[in-house]
């Protein structure tokens, strides 16, 4: 036709070439030594590629020359912000292999200590996330409370951060007298402080603007990538190992009344008056992941209160640790526990001698981090720390 060979005018955008930008490994907002290689077109990030391994200390190779009790300090250094939960995971895994029966008192002691570790870890997660978004004060409020928990840990086991306290067979020492009262005093003064954090961050208009609707992850994608913990529950998947986990792990929480913090049919559990969900927040975005962590702190407080009552009424000894060179039966065992950042799994293969044949640690942040490639595609440069911060990753656990 007449118009066949008429020139066709195509609207072209101004040709811009991509900028390859290197965020990390020594970058203030990447929670340790994580390196993100970003391809950005102006402010829009087109491709993110995380590089890990800067903190790899071959914990699994060393595990093949140490008895299980000697490997406990290595599990502390994996998720150094929740060392207690790591020790618990490894101890339960070894006890599962030994089919070791735990005394009643040790069970409640472990629940109290694990939930205190969860609060301490979530406090760091909250404070660091505020730091990623530019406000410095919540970080210091969080660490003020965390200091009190670390003092409690120090009284219990002598170490504040890497406190190899929970060992296969129970714990290295019993709770000192007066410790429970101090713990209760801490909880009583801590409860009103949480309202401060909500005012400072969760319901802060700018915080909501920076996190609501950013890095939205569908439930299917979260499961497909193996994300666990608050990242999974932030996307609305009702999965918490403390309730639906292995028999040996859920029996620890027998008799404890607690609800899994997840948005089921439109609302979160209403056992306390939590701040409302803002309209901009979409299920599975950064805000919800942050919100689940904040609610889990309140849930942990309830559990600890019940644990203290159970511990006071339980009798029997507090669970002496197993002998250093107890022979491990031949076989292999895998157990996952609900750590603050997700499900931390330990896989132990033994060939009948006292030293395991293979120790493997499945890191929750490892899978949570694998989501960044898909989640950060097409977001703005300022959103990358917001998304990576909401996944609350710890490099020690990822690199092992």
């Amino acid at each position, binding site marked *: 036709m007449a118009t066949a060979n008429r020139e066709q005018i195509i609207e072209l955008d101004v040709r811009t070439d991509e900028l390859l930008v290197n965020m990390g490994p020594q970058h203030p907002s990447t929670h340790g030594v994580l390196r993100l290689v970003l391809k950005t077109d102006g402010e829009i990030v087109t491709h993110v590629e995380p590089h890990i391994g800067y903190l790899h200390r071959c914990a699994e190779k060393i595990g093949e020359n140490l008895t299980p009790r000697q490997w406990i300090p290595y599990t502390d250094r994996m998720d150094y912000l929740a060392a207690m939960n790591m020790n618990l995971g490894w101890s339960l895994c070894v006890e599962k292999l030994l089919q070791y029966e735990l005394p009643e008192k040790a069970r409640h002691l472990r629940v109290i200590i694990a939930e205190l570790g969860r609060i301490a870890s979530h406090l760091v997660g909250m404070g660091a996330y505020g730091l990623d978004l530019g406000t410095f004060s919540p970080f210091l409020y969080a660490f003020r409370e965390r200091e009190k928990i670390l003092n409690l840990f120090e009284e219990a086991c002598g170490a504040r951060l890497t406190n190899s306290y929970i060992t296969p067979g129970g714990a290295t020492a019993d709770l000192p007298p007066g410790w429970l009262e101090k713990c209760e005093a801490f909880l009583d003064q801590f409860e009103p402080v949480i309202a401060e954090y909500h005012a400072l961050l969760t319901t802060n208009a700018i915080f909501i603007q920076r996190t609501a609707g950013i890095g939205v992850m569908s439930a299917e994608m979260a*499961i497909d*990538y*193996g994300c666990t913990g608050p990242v999974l529950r932030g996307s609305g998947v009702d999965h918490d190992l403390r309730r*639906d986990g292995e028999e040996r792990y859920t029996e620890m929480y027998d008799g404890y009344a607690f609800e899994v913090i997840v948005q089921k049919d439109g609302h979160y559990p209403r056992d306390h008056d939590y701040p409302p969900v803002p309209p901009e927040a979409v299920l599975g975005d950064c805000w919800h992941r942050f919100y689940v962590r904040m609610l889990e702190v309140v849930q942990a407080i309830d559990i600890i209160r019940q644990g203290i009552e159970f511990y006071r009424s339980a009798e029997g000894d507090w669970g002496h640790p197993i002998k250093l060179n107890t022979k491990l039966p031949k076989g*292999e065992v895998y157990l996952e526990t609900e750590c603050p950042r997700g499900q931390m*799994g330990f896989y132990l293969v033994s060939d009948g001698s006292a030293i395991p044949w*293979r120790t*493997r640690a499945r890191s929750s942040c490892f899978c949570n981090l*694998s989501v960044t490639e898909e989640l950060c595609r097409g977001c703005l440069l300022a959103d990358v720390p917001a998304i990576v911060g909401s996944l609350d990753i710890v490099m020690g656990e990822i*690199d092992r």
Partner: protein
Amino acid sequence: MTEGPQFLETLKARFGDRIRGANLENIDPWVEVAPEAIVEVCRFLKTDPDARFDMLNCISGVDYFQPDPAKAKRASFEPHLEVVYHLSSTVTKHTLVLKVMLPRWKDDQEGVLPELDSVASVWRGAAWHEREVYDLMGVWFRNHPGLKRILLPEDWEGHPLRKDYELPLEYHGIRGR
């Protein structure tokens, strides 16, 4: 634990001899799968309405090889590599362990990595796990979206978690031993 034996029967009925065996006595029973059928079995386990193992928890590599000859004679196993898949279901709350037995070197030539199909097409999360198994244990995963080392530097030789691994003398000027 899954319903144990009947589930094994359904798997055997469906996949016949590609399910090489199972060990139900162990604390965590596992099912052994033939290397070439792993992707098919995994896709079935994920999509099957009553199985629905939609979450891949962990892929680990275990090296069964006794380096010093003295203990080698008493070892109860002949040298091979195992790739272990731990699956779980967020719906039925069950867990399952799959195992794949691989020769330590591809048709026994020293230095050529054994090969296995990648399940990254079934669970996208498997990609990083497989990269780690490749990096530390030395198993080559066919049609993997981007198989390269994840924890160790790109130009590192050798796969540390193998029993017969020797730490290199030096790496970029840093003394190894």
